[in-house]
């Protein structure tokens, strides 16, 4: 029964989408990693909004965190002869061949929010924040905040092997370099998810004397931080006070936590990568103007002083 309904609605959906398509003059393929975090969902929403605003027919493909699905999607886009491709690559490696194919087909490719490990002439531009810089901003904030006091830091890494995990770790460590009062005592992967963030934080707390040994938490994304805050509270400590919490992404839920005093700082990774990307693409297609190879988005630091409640209200409608 359930399947019948699902099938019927699938058909209806397919039909209606078909008739609605072809109106736009520009067709762009967007290969998204998946929807593993709130930030990514917001990026998807914003990309769709930006495309709609410009009258672009956006072909969206969700890869469910699998590179092979992203490559398949890219090849499909090429076969469809789209006018351009946006891709948020799931890993850095393994893109040379398919990017070369896109190039051969003269389809410009723009990378969103993550870069790849491939020759720069294979893509038009990359719109990303500086991931290392993000980690650095978070690290600097922590260095300034503790102001010379000794502080043990625990780190929740992103998905192992993903470029944000590698770069955000690197930038943070750079900021801490030479500051002997700050020490990363535990570092584990929380897979960018709330569940794992919570579970790993629980074990950190146990392993470090019920958390008394921990002065700060650095999480590679807000979702893990939200999970970890939960764990800290359940351990009878006050997140934000007993343990400082700094993370990256600036999703709405972390502002709620900041408003409640449970998180201290977050570095914004704007989900609006598509805006600058589509601007650059427009310029390129109209005037043939080559954009720079890297368009850096701002990495803005938010703290409890920035009226987090207000930011939350602004952000919560964005599909985070």
């Amino acid at each position, binding site marked *: 029964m359930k399947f019948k309904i699902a099938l019927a609605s699938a058909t209806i959906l397919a039909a209606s989408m078909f008739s609605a398509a072809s109106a736009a003059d520009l067709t762009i393929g967007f290969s998204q990693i998946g929807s593993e975090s709130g930030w990514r969902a917001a990026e998807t929403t914003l990309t769709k909004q930006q495309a709609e605003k410009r009258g672009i027919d956006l072909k969206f493909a969700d890869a*469910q965190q699998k590179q092979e699905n992203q490559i398949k999607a890219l090849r499909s886009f090429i076969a469809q002869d789209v006018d351009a491709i946006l891709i948020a690559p799931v890993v850095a490696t393994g893109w040379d061949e398919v990017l070369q194919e896109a190039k051969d087909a003269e389809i410009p490719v723009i990378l969103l929010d993550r870069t790849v490990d491939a020759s720069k002439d294979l893509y038009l531009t990359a719109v990303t924040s500086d991931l290392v810089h993000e980690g650095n901003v978070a690290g600097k904030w922590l260095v300034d905040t503790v102001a010379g006091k000794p502080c043990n830091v625990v780190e929740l890494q992103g998905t192992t092997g993903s470029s944000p995990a590698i770069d955000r770790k690197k930038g943070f460590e750079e900021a801490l370099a030479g500051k002997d009062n700050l020490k990363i005592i535990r570092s584990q992967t929380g897979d960018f998810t709330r569940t794992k963030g919570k579970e790993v934080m629980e074990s950190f707390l146990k392993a470090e*004397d019920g958390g008394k040994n921990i002065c700060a938490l650095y999480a590679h994304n807000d979702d893990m931080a939200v999970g970890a805050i939960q764990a800290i509270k359940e351990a009878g400590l006050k997140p934000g006070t007993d343990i400082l919490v700094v993370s990256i992404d600036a999703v709405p839920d972390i502002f709620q936590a900041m408003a409640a005093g449970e998180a201290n700082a977050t570095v914004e990774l704007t989900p609006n990568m598509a805006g600058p990307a589509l601007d650059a693409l427009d310029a390129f297609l109209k005037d043939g103007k080559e954009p720079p190879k890297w368009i850096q988005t701002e990495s803005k630091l938010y703290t409890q002083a920035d009226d987090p409640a207000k930011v939350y209200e602004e952000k919560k409608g964005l599909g985070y």
Partner: protein
Amino acid sequence: MSPTLKAYAIRLFPQVAALAVILLMVSIAFPGFFRLEMQNGRLYGSMIDILNRGAPVALLAIGMTVVIATKGIDLSVGAVMAICGAVAAAAITSGHSLAMTLLITLGTGILCGLWNGILVAVLDIQPIIATLVLMVAGRGIAQLITEGAILTFNDAGLIFIGSGSLFGLPMPVVVWLAFGILVALLVRRTALGMLIEALGVNRRASMLSGVSTGVLLIAAYVLSGLCAALAGIIAAADIRGADANNAGLWLELDAILAVVVGGTSLLGGRFSIAASLIGALIIQSVNTGILLSGFPPEFNLIIKAAIIVLILVIQSPRAQSAFVFLSRAGASEKKTEQEAK
């Protein structure tokens, strides 16, 4: 000790021993492991974490045990968890009361179980294929409900199920313990357990003895669906959001493993819910132990595989018959003499 209690102790011994060995090993790597303290009116410590984090697999293992006892298997529980988590989040955010939400969610789980049960019992499809259908399609259905995003909610009641505490224990622990005891009592205090075992060992002979095999089969899958629904609610409530992508991912394999480690044969028949729950705790102890010991998580799977292979080889029919042969070699001669008289 009464004979029943003694039989029970013998049955559970290997699992309890394995759990003890693993916990001991973890405590060597992490000395503070056994420490328990009260904080904010609830128990707090690594042991509690194992009980708490093991909740989804433990819940799934309850239903899976019964399904496997009927000579079946349910591959769909992970996907059903995702569906039910999504349904719960969708229901509560669209303004239903907590009671209504729970009702809808558990109902969804029951429906999923009913679907599997009917495929197996009525259409007579091999359980592994029958449940594969929902395993493949289920996660898609869950994502359809959440539209790919993490559906967050702030309902205090629902969150309480994930991270509140009762009697000093985290709610998930209370839920799986209570449900485990409930189901164990249900199957052992009524005749269900025996009838299910009879069905699993010899379906035709059971049918000829008047056991309603079809109804029992469907009921087993419905129970499994219900367990998956509970696990899905807990997983969603724990993080205050339904994550259709990750909720319950690959947990069906952990649940099956918990049952097999618990000593219930995949060929059906004799089962023990308590042993499966200990099996689930064994698996979670390995996971938590690795996190605590500061061991890199990449060793998790290898250690897990090694432990499973070890336990399974010990349980395999060949190894067992060799074991029985060795241990009885002496005793049997005496016995045959006596029987000859």
